[in-house]
């Protein structure tokens, strides 16, 4: 069963309520999902793990509604992203959740030369761009899969990637020249 595809495990859960099949899905996806949520929560590990747990609960409750037309992981990231947004609204009810804003605060940090530098840079990106970057570069998802996962138009994904990529690259290149 450990080598079964995600779709096969989901089918088993829906048909027989097999909890061990769901446990396999949790073990298989826990690390990338928790990493995704850590990136969204700016490395708040405890909050990210709580959100990851909630994501898996929601996925289990509504697993029968998983149509199988998209990848299971895309469906899981959609639940995680919506769970995060709801949590964000609860925690900061008066904060503007403008996902389209573009932050230009890169002057405060030095050029990225290591992974941790890059993580710091990524944490300064607007919320949705952070999600798009993570799903594209770290999870290897296509533009179409990201659009489905975050429920945004395909053009938005492309422009988020292009704008974020340009901003980060310009900053890094400038810092390297100065160095």
């Amino acid at each position, binding site marked *: 069963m450990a080598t079964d595809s995600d779709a096969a495990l989901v089918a088993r859960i829906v048909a027989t309520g097999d909890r061990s099949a769901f446990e396999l899905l949790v073990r298989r996806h*826990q690390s990338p999902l928790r990493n995704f949520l850590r990136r969204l929560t700016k490395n708040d590990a405890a909050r990210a793990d709580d959100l990851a*747990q909630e994501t898996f*609960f929601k996925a289990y409750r509504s697993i029968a509604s998983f149509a199988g037309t998209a990848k299971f992981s895309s469906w899981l990231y959609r639940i995680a992203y919506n769970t995060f947004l709801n949590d964000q609204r609860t925690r900061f009810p008066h904060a503007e959740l403008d996902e389209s804003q573009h932050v230009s605060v890169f002057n405060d940090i030095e050029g990225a030369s290591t992974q941790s530098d890059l993580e710091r840079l990524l944490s300064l990106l607007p919320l949705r761009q952070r999600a798009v970057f993570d799903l594209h570069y770290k999870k290897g998802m296509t533009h179409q899969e990201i659009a489905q996962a975050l429920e945004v138009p395909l053009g938005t994904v492309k422009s988020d990637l292009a704008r974020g*990529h340009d901003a980060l690259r310009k900053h890094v290149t400038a810092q390297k020249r100065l160095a």
Partner: protein
Amino acid sequence: MNNADLEFDRLLRSPESELADAGFSESVMKRLPVTRWGRMPMRRWTLTGTAALGSLSTYLLAEPIEHALSAYAMLPAPAITIVALALVVSLPLAWILYTE
């Protein structure tokens, strides 16, 4: 693409660290809600067992009950059947209406 761009792209695409499970999956499974999917196997066995028990009871008790009824009942057999059917339908119905 110059060297800086390539270096930056390499950084972006570098694989993220694998987070150790450290009891996370176990914690999720412990707190997993019981859904109708989770109850399904038990429900299936309950239905099968009840049906088997009902069939066995009918097979074993039908004849003695018929003898007892014919010996003591004042009503004719068709009337008894109608009363029995009415009870079989009305009692569960009354229970459902009462519990809802």
